[in-house]
């Protein structure tokens, strides 16, 4: 394809010093990244470790296997919402409706599993209906943003009010809907047996190793230099350590014992959405639209379509999160989707390193960010602090994270041109 115009100018020597440059490797890339505003996950991981160490000394019941499982299940719902937020933020947009949208999903799933209601479906079908509905709503909101040009802040703020209103209208009459369906409740309260946990850890590690090897081989076949083989090995080792470590702790817990399904769901979505963001043309276009929408348009990308799909992902993930959050409580009541859920999800994505200004961030930032938020609130809770303190501390952490991001962006502006 490119060969016609790929000006064949034979005899042009290879850029000198290429080999040496490649091996300057890790540090050079890290420097480039920092210079261009990509701080990576290092600061936030250090922060998380500090938080864990702090609470381990502060609260007696914090650093236990049981509490580890608690944190995993607590963060799962928020994390699902945060996954969606990452995509919307990457596009340089915002979605304020996801909190109550997740409430709509909870309400829907509860309604469609309700025995004797005339529309009782199997749990999985109910889940599919709920997530599908949220995806559709996300698509409608996204269309208004992308096609009509109403700012996403306003569209989704309206969504926030509308879906809250719908929830109030429905539940004012019904009060509380109890969820009895096993499939639905299992999303939050099922724990794998010890053996199953080990198998899952082995599968995840094996898959990661397999994919990484595939990439390395692909690069070698294409004759492209493999950067920093040490880093590749370190990454595989790191993944193995984290997965097996997680299972070891979970299996060590007394009540509830074993690896929580909710945690596994988080990992599944983490892998799937990372694939979507980093390995597919769609993901590439999301970054492009967020980075420079005009350049994306000139490159022939259908910007409106990408934006709408982004909002659909946001809606879908709000739906998934809503189901898990409802399952944790086994019921849906008037407070569903409210409280700090929305702000926690957005904070999670931002604390995890996704920029509010679009074009920079990773899917994994949702996981790290929600871990930070949930760990802080869990730790403060365990140490006997009140809700007020939890809000204040979370707020300070959010401010720190955004300040860091803003400084990074200014560095980028300076390094450009």
């Amino acid at each position: 394809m490119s060969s016609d115009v790929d000006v064949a100018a034979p005899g042009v020597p290879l850029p000198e010093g290429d080999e040496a440059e490649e091996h300057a490797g890790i540090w050079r890339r890290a420097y480039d990244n920092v210079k261009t505003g990509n701080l990576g996950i290092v600061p936030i991981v250090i922060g998380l470790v500090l938080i864990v160490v702090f609470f381990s000394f502060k609260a007696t019941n914090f650093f236990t296997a049981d509490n580890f499982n608690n944190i995993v299940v607590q963060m799962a719902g928020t994390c699902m919402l945060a996954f969606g937020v990452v995509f919307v933020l990457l596009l340089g947009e915002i979605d304020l409706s996801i909190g109550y949208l997740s409430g709509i999903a909870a309400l829907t799933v509860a309604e469609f599993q309700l025995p004797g209601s005339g529309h009782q479906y199997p749990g999985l079908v109910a889940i599919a209906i709920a997530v599908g509905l949220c995806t559709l709503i996300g698509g409608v909101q996204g269309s208004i943003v992308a096609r009509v040009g109403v700012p996403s802040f306003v569209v989704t703020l309206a969504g926030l009010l509308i879906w809250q209103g719908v929830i109030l209208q429905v539940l004012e009459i019904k009060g509380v809907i109890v969820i009895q369906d096993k499939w639905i409740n299992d999303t939050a309260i099922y724990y794998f047996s010890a053996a199953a946990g080990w198998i899952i850890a082995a599968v995840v590690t094996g898959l990661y190793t397999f994919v990484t090897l595939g990439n390395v081989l692909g690069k070698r076949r294409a004759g492209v230099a493999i950067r920093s083989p040490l880093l590749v090995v370190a990454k595989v080792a790191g993944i193995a350590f984290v997965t097996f470590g997680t299972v070891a702790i979970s299996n060590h817990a007394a009540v509830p014992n074993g690896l929580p399904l909710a945690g596994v769901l988080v990992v599944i979505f983490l892998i799937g959405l990372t694939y979507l963001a980093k390995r597919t043309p769609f993901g590439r276009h999301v970054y492009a639209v967020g980075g420079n929408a005009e350049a994306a348009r000139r490159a022939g990308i259908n910007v409106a379509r990408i934006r709408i799909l982004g909002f659909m992902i946001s809606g879908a993930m709000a739906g998934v999160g809503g189901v898990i959050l409802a399952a944790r409580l086994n019921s849906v009541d008037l407070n569903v989707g409210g409280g700090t859920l929305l702000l926690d999800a957005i904070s999670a994505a931002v604390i995890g390193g996704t920029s509010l200004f679009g074009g920079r961030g990773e899917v994994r930032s949702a996981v790290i960010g929600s871990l930070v938020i949930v760990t802080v609130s869990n730790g403060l809770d365990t140490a006997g602090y009140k809700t007020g303190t939890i809000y204040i501390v979370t707020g300070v952490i959010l401010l720190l994270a955004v300040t860091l991001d803003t400084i990074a962006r200014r560095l980028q502006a300076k390094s450009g041109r």
Partner: protein
Amino acid sequence: MNGTPILQLRGISKSFGSVQALSDVDFEVLNGEVMALVGDNGAGKSTLIKCIAGIHGFDSGEILFDGKPVSIHGPKDAAKLGIEVVYQDLALCDNLDVVQNMYLGREERDWLYRLKEPVMEQRTAETLKSLAVTTIRSIRQPVASLSGGQRQSVAVAKAVQWNSRLVILDEPTAALGVAQTAQVLELVKRLADQGLAVVLISHNLHDIFEVATRITVLRLGRDVGVYERQQTTQQEVVQAITAGIPTKVSGIAETDAEAIL
């Protein structure tokens, strides 16, 4: 230089409200030539290329591509014909790396809808090498960390790697240092040697005399002459830019620019 021009504009007029940006402009480019488009600020250079690129419509006149009349209603139509424009503001995504920018919107993918990164990386390296763009340290670094000349090179490489036949460069050397300017001009020459038609817009006559085959001068929205580089001088071109007289004024028989100057 013979045969039909790849692109030929006949009597293009365009006004923005009461401002006549272009009036009755003729313009042509042949395959394998660098046609420079010069003129003072407000002469209508940008408007003219925007008409060619399909960003503006024009009020009257016609565009012939390969000798056939075509209608260009948008950037996509232009791209379909093989016309690529490298704008002054470059249109690169700062947050993406060189490879990602080169393939933006036309990514290679496999049956799993997966990006073929190694293939794209390798071809990008080849393209840049064949254009002798050697100063970029790593094609996996974000474009934000590149210098102005490097960005310009990437933007040009991006424009020409897709079967394009006519490349329009808008002030490609405006913000560059001496060495980088030389690099970009070298690139421009190489494009023409490949048989591509190149339209070069620039304020810098020195640059133009180094690479152009012919020079079209615009003044106040009219074309005031086409000069063969070999048979003209910078002085003559400057004179045309500042005080050129249209060779063709509606209602008046064609005048000979050479005779007047």
